[in-house]
């Protein structure tokens, strides 16, 4: 199968009539995603591309079309509210592409999303794709091919780079997931790793991290304990300058952690094969799948 999106995904696009929303909605439609509805307040009753009904509210869309998954392209000032709207309307999987959402907006609505039992992917993420089945977000469909490698990444375009390497070498993907790099996100590495571990159609996992924070170290510890499938990893930012300090508090919270070296060491300790450059993914995955 795949994780999070599959053949029963019924997608509603929030912000379907906006510049980015309409552009990517066309691409998602072209890819064959089962897009059942769009939402733009004030444009209820229209049809997008002459086939997708547009509603004023997500609640209307869910009631009329049975949508179960949403993808959000609304501007940053309204995006957190759009996430809450989707969760309140009973959407169980929400993908928020929007970049630049105030962090406190997200901190305020995340507990609501959790209480409603919804899963949020993002924000500020490229979404995800289950090649050949459904594309939800902005990952270019043409670089993907169906297969049995699961991919999870904190970044957008770096994900594409690695997926592209895999596809060009005939290594297909079960699902490719971009979790986004914002301070407050709905789905983290561990959530995705657990889903891949449980997915019978994923044989190996590629995990793309970055410098900063300790999410990669936590994911490595999770992998050591709970993931039996082979994992290949990458950390971007080995040559990046140290980030600006966020007062004393930033230093106190993060301590000395967050460097590429520390993360790579954690990966190695957890038995993850570490790529030195994106193109290494092919060799390493091939090796790990052989053993």
């Amino acid at each position, binding site marked *: 199968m795949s994780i999070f999106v599959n053949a029963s995904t019924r997608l509603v696009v929030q912000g379907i009539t906006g510049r*980015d929303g309409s*552009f*990517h909605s066309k691409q998602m439609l072209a890819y064959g995603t089962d897009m059942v509805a769009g939402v733009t307040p004030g444009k209820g009753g229209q049809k997008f591309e002459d086939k997708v009904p547009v509603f004023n509210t997500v609640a209307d869309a869910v009631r009329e079309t049975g949508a179960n998954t949403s993808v959000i392209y609304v501007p*940053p*000032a309204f995006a957190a509210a759009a996430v809450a709207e989707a969760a309140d309307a009973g959407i169980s999987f929400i993908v928020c*592409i929007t*970049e*630049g*959402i*105030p*962090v*406190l907006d997200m*901190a*305020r609505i995340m*507990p609501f999303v959790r209480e409603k039992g919804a899963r949020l992917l993002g924000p500020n993420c*490229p979404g995800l794709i289950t090649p050949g089945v459904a594309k939800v977000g*902005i990952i*270019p469909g043409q*670089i993907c091919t169906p297969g049995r490698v699961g991919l999870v*990444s*904190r*970044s*957008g*375009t*770096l*994900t*594409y*780079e690695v997926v*592209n390497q895999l596809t060009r070498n005939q290594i297909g993907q079960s699902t490719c997931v971009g979790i986004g*790099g914002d*301070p*407050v996100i709905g789905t983290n590495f561990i959530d995705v790793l657990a889903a891949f571990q449980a997915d019978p159609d994923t044989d190996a996992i590629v995990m*793309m991290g*970055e*410098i900063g*924070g*300790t*999410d990669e170290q936590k994911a490595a510890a999770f992998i050591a304990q709970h993931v039996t499938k082979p994992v290949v990893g*990458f950390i*971007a*930012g*080995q*040559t*990046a*300058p140290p980030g600006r*300090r*966020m*007062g*004393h*508090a*930033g*230093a*106190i*919270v993060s*301590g*000395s952690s967050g460097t590429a070296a520390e993360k790579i060491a954690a990966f190695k300790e957890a038995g993850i094969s570490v790529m*030195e*450059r*994106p*193109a290494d993914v092919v060799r390493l995955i091939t090796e790990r799948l052989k053993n």
Partner: protein
Amino acid sequence: MNLHEYQARELLKAAGVPMLDGGVAATADEVHAIASRIGGTVVVKAQVHAGGRGKAGGVKLAKTPAEAKEVAARILGMTIKGLVVQKVLVVPAADIASESYVGLIMDRESQRPLFMVSSAGGIDIEEVAAKTPEKIHRLAVDPRFGLMPHQSLGLALKLYQDFNQVRAAARMMEQLYSVFMANGASLAEINPLATTSDGKVLALDAKISIDDNELDRRPDLAALRDESAEEPSEVTARKANLTFIKLDGNVGCVVNGAGLAMATMDLVKYYGGDPANFLDIGGSSNPEKVVNALKIITADPSVKVILFNIFGGITRTDDVANGIVTATRQFKVDLPIVIRLTGTNEKEAVKILEGVGMKALNDMDEAVKQAVALAKGAK
């Protein structure tokens, strides 16, 4: 966006945080006037976005207005960590009995505003945190309920025994939290939170950073930005909606996405080169951004080659190609340009570039290798 100390003081003061009355000045004469008004010994503090001001000589005591003027004349114009001091804050010298630390930061892990407090405050707080982490007390605030009275009291009890001081500190934490939430802060710190020898509790220094994502809807906060206190190339980049950090190498990089930008720099290094910068043109595509990116990079004389690495997703590669074409028409680019483009609207992009005689590569490793070779050849 970091606020200056004097700006942070104003936000906290409006919320009722007790602090000593002071004044901000851009000239030594103004400092003289403020010091005269205050009377007694004052502290003159450089207003720059850099830590370790004190150690760099940017914070000085002065016993008289004349001495304050003299001290200010030395501090104003001083360079601290590459930043020129344009303004100083003048405050009365406090008679400090103890120094505590109160910090509030947006915490990734709990996804909540996190209080950190310690009775061992002052400039060495990071060392305290590293060596004796048990001296730092933490509390993540659930934004659904806000900072509850028993929580602020519990934090304050970690700092003081005297119950008047406990109540004063608890009130200040509530005020700090309300300033943090009302202004979309990512950080708000009072360090030191001092007690004076007569038992008063005062905020002696304050630091606030605002989430950049708040600024669009908060013109009042955006107006607090002091561009004179920033690196000029970074001001230009920010105005063009680019993320730019200058580095020491000679391979100028233009990449879309922070992760890919870092991986590109890593690959430049991997193939023996040196990146001249980190530059992320971001998600949404806009030819103008590319023009601005090229302007910023070509302004750096150490750059020998320009490397584009664009993987189209939400960014349309044809927009980037159009930007390159527009830029080379607007101003002469004397440097070799290596372009790697793939993804959304790739075919259109290649056509656009070929139309002006430029070539686009498809493979990242190949592009980086070419750029590194060109940089080396140019030496």
